[in-house]
C-alpha cells in the first residue's frame, strides 16, 4: 500500500478515531481540548448559563453518536460545532432577544461633543457592537451561524461547511452576502427617534 496523502490520512490529532475501546478517556481529552472555546462561542450567542448546558449536551450527544464521526470527512472540531449548532437551534428566540436587548443599549452612549460623535463612535467598538447586534438579530439562523462560526468560533469556510453539512462554496458566498448586507444595514449612526 502506498503512503496516503494528508487529505486521506484517516486520523491525527484533529481527526481522531472515536470508536476506540476507551471512549471516556478519549472524550475526556476531547473535552479538555475543545470545551473551553466551544463554551465561549456558545456563551457569546446565548449567554454563559445556557452555554454550560449546551456544552454538556454537545459532548453527551457526541459520545452517543461517536460512530457517526468519520475522520476522513472532517476535523473533529467541525463535528462538535455542528452538533452544538443543531442544539442551539432550540434557543434562537433567546439569542434574538439577547441581541435586541444589546441593540437597545446603543441609544444610551451619551451625546457629548455632538459634532464629533461619528468619529468617537467609530473608535468605540462597544458602541458599534451594540449597533451591530440589532442587525444580527435580523439575520436568518443559517446566515448567523455561518457568520459567527467564522468570526467567533474561528472556523474556516471548509470547517463551517462540514459543521453545517453544506458545500464550502455555499459558505463562502453566504458569508460574502451576509457581510455585505450587514455593512449596508448596520446603522452607522444611532437612530434615535427620541432625539429628534
Amino acid at each position, binding site marked *: 500500500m502506498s*503512503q496516503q496523502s494528508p487529505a486521506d490520512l484517516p486520523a491525527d490529532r484533529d481527526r481522531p*478515531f472515536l470508536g476506540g*475501546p476507551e471512549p471516556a*478517556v478519549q472524550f475526556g481529552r476531547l473535552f479538555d481540548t475543545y470545551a473551553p472555546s466551544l463554551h465561549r462561542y456558545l456563551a*457569546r450567542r446565548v449567554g454563559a448559563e445556557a452555554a*454550560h448546558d449546551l456544552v454538556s449536551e454537545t459532548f453527551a450527544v457526541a459520545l452517543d453518536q461517536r460512530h457517526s464521526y468519520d475522520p476522513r470527512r472532517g476535523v473533529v472540531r467541525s463535528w462538535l460545532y455542528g452538533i452544538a449548532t443543531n442544539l442551539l437551534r432550540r434557543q434562537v428566540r433567546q439569542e434574538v432577544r439577547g441581541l435586541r436587548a444589546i441593540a437597545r443599549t446603543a441609544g444610551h452612549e451619551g451625546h457629548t461633543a455632538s459634532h464629533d460623535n461619528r468619529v468617537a463612535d467609530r473608535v468605540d*467598538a462597544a458602541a*458599534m457592537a451594540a449597533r451591530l447586534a440589532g442587525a444580527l438579530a435580523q439575520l436568518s439562523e443559517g446566515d448567523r451561524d455561518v457568520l459567527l462560526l467564522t468570526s467567533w468560533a474561528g472556523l474556516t469556510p471548509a470547517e463551517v461547511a462540514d459543521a453545517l453539512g453544506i458545500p464550502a462554496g455555499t459558505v463562502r458566498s453566504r458569508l460574502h452576502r451576509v*457581510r455585505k448586507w450587514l455593512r449596508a444595514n448596520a446603522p452607522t449612526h444611532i437612530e434615535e427617534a427620541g432625539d429628534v
Partner: protein
Amino acid sequence: MSEQNVHEMWSDDDLDLALAALRSDVDTDVARLAGIRGELFGSTDTPAPAPSRTWIRWAAVAAAVAVLVGAVFVVLARRGDDKPVPPATPPAVSPIERIKAVDEPQRPGQFRYVGTHGWLLGQSDTFAYVAETTTTTWVPAQERQDWMQRRTVSGQRKFLFGTEADAREQDALDMWPSGTWHARCGDFLLEQPLRCTGKAYWGEPDEEFMDSLPRDPQQLYDRLSAEAKGGQSHEHRMFTTAADLLRNGTAPADLRLALYRALAKLPHLEVAEGVANLDGRTGVSLAITGSATHEVIIVDPATGQFIGERVVTTIAEAGVAADEVIVDTAVRYGVVDQQGDEPAH
C-alpha cells in the same frame, strides 16, 4: 431613518471590529466545565470510569490502537464473577515452566517487526461480522523515534449475525480502515499521546511502564490483581489485562516470561501444548473461560513470543450464537533494516 444612514456604509474593518467586540466579555467558568467533564467522562485527576465490557475489548486486538468507525460496539452488561468451578488440574510440569523467552537482537537504526494477521469483530445492534485484517508495526530501536504502522483489509468478512446490507446501512462495512500511520512512541491514532507521557498503561505500554512492572511472578501477579478491575470475572480481567500488554508485541523477553508465570498462578488457567494459531503455527496455549467468552493466547515456547490469540463465545448474546470464533489472530516477529520491510523468515 436618519440622514446619515442613507449613504453611509460600514467598512469590512468596522464590521470585524464590531463583531470582535460584541459580547466579548463573556466568562467561562472553569470549575463548571470541570464539573461537566467529571459527570460525562470522569475527572482529569482520576482515571475515567472503565465501561464494563466483554467483547468490546477485542476492538483492540491485533493493533496497538483500536480503530473503529461507522458503528458502535455492543457493550455487554457486566456479570458477576464466574460460577465456582474446580481449579484446572495442573500437569506434573506445566508447559509454562518450559517456555523460554528470548528477543532477536535489534541494532540502532533497525526496526522490530510485529505483523498480525487476524479476523476481528465488528458489531452493532443489527449485525456482527469478523473481518480479515493485517496490521504491521515497525518499532524503532528507541521508542521516541518514528514508528510506522500499516493496516490492510482483505475485504473478506464472515457475518455472524445480520447481513452485509445491515452493515452497509450503518456505513459500517469497513470498521477497520486501511492506512499507514507514523508516530513516535507508537501513539498512532490517539488525539493525545499516552506513551512517553507518563500515562502509559497495560493497553498502551511504553518502556517506562514496562520497566516499572515486577519480574518476580508473584509480585507481577499481585500488581495485575490490583490493577485489573471489572471484566467477566477478576481472573478473566487479569488474564485479558496481561493479553492487552502482550498484544502490543513490544514486551521484552523477561517481562513476557514473568507474565506467563504470573498467569500460571490463576486458579482456573487452562494450559495446553500444540495449539495452532490462525496461520497454523503451534505453541503453548494459556486460556481462561469467563462468563461470556473463552479466551486463548498462544505462546511460542522457544522464544516466549505471543504468536496469536483466539476468542470464542460461550453463550449466545447480542445476536451472536455460542461457540462462534469472534477473534482469531497469528503474529509474526522479526528485525528489519527499514520500515516497510518484511522479515526474511
